[in-house]
């Protein structure tokens, strides 16, 4: 379970708050969607959960299964079960995707006090995961994300998630830059990972993604906090009416 309580975040003290008293609880197995206009703080939230150092947490707490994430380094959070699928996965030249996957998987196992995977075991897992996502073996030999198309990058993110088996998967605008076919493949990949123990936080501008990854709850975010929470029908309502209702209300 992920619990975020009264979270206040700025780039540094005294500057404008990007998150302003945000509360959010995601139960085990729940798929929660966060929707909101540009600049509402959606990506900031995902980075703060994952532990990016560019932000200052002024107040509040983030607990994953009762553990305080804010006291952990990004790698410790990953070992604790946080996975952030980046909106713009970074290109890392010279680091073969396969080498990276192995390093990540083993680092995380080490962080959890587990033994390293044997090479054949690792290869089997990668092969099976890659096949499901339509990722050719060749691509895994190339530099991580280097020269990958938008769709290939997102599929690789999902492959990483499938291998790392997080307890919470955060998808930061995973639909951006995807055509409909890629969107379907990525969504199927995510749906295959849904389980009673694993929860998801799906961040998106558009309702379209939620046709494929059907959320249990939808939260509308504005100016750094959740302003409304509902079921999946809330996304349809937003699609029809836009954010203008909320923007006007908030301004009033």
């Amino acid at each position, binding site marked *: 379970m992920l619990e975020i309580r009264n979270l206040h975040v700025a780039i540094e003290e005294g500057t404008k708050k990007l998150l302003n008293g945000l509360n959010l609880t995601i139960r085990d197995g729940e798929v929660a969607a966060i929707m909101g206009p540009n600049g509402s703080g959606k990506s900031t939230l995902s980075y703060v959960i994952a532990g990016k150092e560019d932000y200052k947490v002024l107040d509040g707490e983030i607990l994953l299964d009762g553990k305080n994430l804010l006291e952990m380094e990004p790698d410790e959070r990953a070992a604790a079960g946080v996975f952030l699928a980046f909106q713009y996965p970074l290109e890392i*030249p010279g680091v073969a995707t396969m080498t990276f996957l192995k390093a990540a998987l083993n680092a995380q196992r080490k962080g959890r006090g587990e033994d390293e995977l044997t090479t054949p075991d690792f290869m089997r897992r990668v092969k099976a995961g890659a096949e499901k996502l339509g990722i050719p073996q060749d691509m895994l030999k190339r530099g991580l994300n280097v020269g990958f198309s938008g769709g290939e990058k997102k599929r690789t993110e999902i492959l990483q998630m499938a291998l790392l088996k997080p307890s919470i998967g955060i998808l930061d605008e995973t639909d951006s830059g995807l055509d409909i076919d890629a969107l379907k493949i990525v969504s199927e990949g995510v749906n295959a990972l849904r389980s009673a123990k694993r929860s998801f936080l799906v961040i998106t501008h558009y309702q379209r993604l939620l046709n494929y990854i059907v959320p249990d709850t939808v939260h509308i975010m504005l100016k750094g906090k959740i302003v409304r929470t509902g079921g999946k029908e809330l996304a349809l309502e937003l699609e029809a009416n836009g954010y203008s209702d909320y923007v006007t209300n908030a301004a009033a």
Partner: protein
Amino acid sequence: MSNITPLKTEAEQAMIAQGASIAADRKPAFARFADSGLPHRRIEAYHYTDLRALLKNAPPPAQAGGKVTIASPLADIDAYKITLVDGHYEASLSSTLPQGVKLQSVSTLADDGADEKGVLSPDPVIALNAAFSESALDIEIAAKTELTKPIVIRIVTTGAHASYPRVRVNVGDAAKAFIVETHEGGVSGSLIDSVFELRLGDHVEIDHLRLNLVDQSATVLTTFGGAMGRESVYRGHNFVMGGALSRHQIFFRFEGEQSKADISSASLLNRKQHADSTLVVDHAVPECQSREFFAHVLDDESTGVFQGKIIVRPGAQQTDGKMMSRAIVLEDGATMNNKPELEIFADDVACGHGATVGALDEDSLFYLRARGLPKTEAEALMLRAFVGEALEKFEHDGLRDTLESLAEAWLKARSA
């Protein structure tokens, strides 16, 4: 000796005193050194490596007979071995050479860089070597010889003294060889001033690896001079990890048309190491191609220097030269000095240079850490990729494995 003035430093005075009874054939080189003294920051080529200020004393010249107690880093490589101990040829640590390769141990190779036809350039460090080197190796690789194993020349330093190793290799037309130089050993107080000359004929194909693995407390000044004939290929690789103070000078000259040289270098520096790589590639004839790639990783309070110059002589049309220097600075206390230059006197050429200095990309590091890699491991992965770029052109699998494990050990020590 009327030109010796009281302005000389203690180290310079000691070096000059050591040369009082020098053999006649080395007197001109000694006089040139005595005249200039140690180079200092007002000499442009030594602006970033002020030897007059950095060399506090002059250790006594090494005698023959030093005992080698360290194992070769390349002990596992199947190679022909030649060993120089404190600058002196050591037959008992050298192997029989194959057909087509001749070795002669001679008392002097007088070239101190003053001769324009030589492969070296006028330089006080070379003059010092020419003055004090009492034993030199002259190696001849006959035309059309194709060596299947590398020739590894170990240059080992055993104590707190000055040594002046000197090697010259002549490679005949259409020969193929892989030559490795390793600089090893040394203690605080060791001064190594070595000169390696490589004269390449036409249609040759040569790989040349130089490893600086001397102790991190020693001073190591090394010069490589190369000249190459027509339609030949030279691939040079440098790997620098050793020395408290090191300077490696490369003078490479194209003397025949349609040849290619590829020179790459990786320096991994930490603590207070100062490492200078100075390069002059001289396109004296048309239609040659050169590629220079220098990578530095600077940790702690280390200092890196790259000075690279591509010269295109009048008439050297169709020259294609590209030089790149990249440096990663890991700590605030580390410094990189980059000075790339082009001197072009022909009008139909394609030449370029670039230089970058920076920290590891924060966003990339965060991405790797968000996947569970601890900070030092994420940095190591990125650094390995960075250094890998300088090693990727390396064609000998066994040696590449050795270099990779050396780099790996450096990275591991860093995260320990």
